[in-house]
């Protein structure tokens, strides 16, 4: 049952948010990655943050984590001119369909645009219908790159 939130605030992640980020990610993916998210926090919002890295959280009026987004403007990887990348986006399953993902995505786009990015891209698992549909709905479409891979064994 969805609980309608009356107010949603989006702001840069703080150290106190990471416990809830770890819990939300674990609830969605089934894997606890505390060390990974603490490292991401340090590099994207904490003491080791570099420019053009972004870690935003959406929280309710009563300070409950509703979702988060991580992104970075990168340049010249794969020959690409400077471009914003969405590296992670999660919204609490019982808070979906209320525009929280869009709020986070638009907040990230605004910051990236302010910092000079003209394009935003991401990579999504081919069978991840939820995220594929979300990003399609935000206007993203197939770009000029194709991901290729092979096993090494």
């Amino acid at each position, binding site marked *: 049952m969805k609980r309608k939130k009356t107010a949603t605030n989006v702001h840069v992640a703080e150290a106190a948010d990471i416990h809830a980020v770890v819990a939300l990610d674990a609830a969605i993916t089934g894997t606890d990655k505390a060390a990974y998210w603490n490292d991401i926090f340090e590099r994207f919002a904490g003491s080791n943050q570099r420019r053009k890295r972004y870690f935003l959280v959406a929280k309710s009026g009563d300070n409950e984590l509703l979702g988060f987004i991580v992104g970075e403007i990168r340049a010249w990887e794969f020959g690409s001119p400077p471009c914003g990348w969405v590296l992670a986006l999660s919204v609490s399953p019982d808070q979906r369909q209320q525009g929280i993902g869009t709020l986070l995505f638009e907040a990230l786009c605004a910051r990236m645009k302010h910092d000079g990015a003209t394009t935003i891209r991401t990579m999504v698992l*081919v069978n991840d*219908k939820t995220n*594929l*549909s979300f990003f*399609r*709905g935000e206007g993203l479409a197939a770009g000029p790159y194709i991901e290729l891979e092979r096993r090494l064994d």
Partner: protein
Amino acid sequence: MKLQKASRYALYAVLHLASEPEKQFSTAEVAESYGVSIHHLAKVMRTLVRSGLIESVRGVGGGYRFSGNVRRTTLWDIIHEFESLESDIDTPDELQGNAIVVVSGLDTVMNEIDGLNRSTLDSITLKTLLRYGVENLDKAP
């Protein structure tokens, strides 16, 4: 990739109804809008009703209306009611030697293409597609 006629008609019909979900449309109205056979479209509409994507409304002014969720229903949800979109390279029954290698290689490529096609169609909701259409119209000279 070439969609079968039934799939194309189904996409026209469901998207037409989804563009105004509060309204009902007759088969004749939809057929006329897209210049397609009313007889063929009527069969497609029956399949769409059985799938739950649309519902028939009886009585005066009756017809069909969209009964899904435009934010959840994807193009693939419609198409797969009519076809699987699996490439068929029409392989001979008995293969020998290099022919086995050639056909196996072609199968791998076709499977990759089929998977990408299905994934693309399954990622585009009706709401997104209708928005693409409006944006394209806005860009038209």
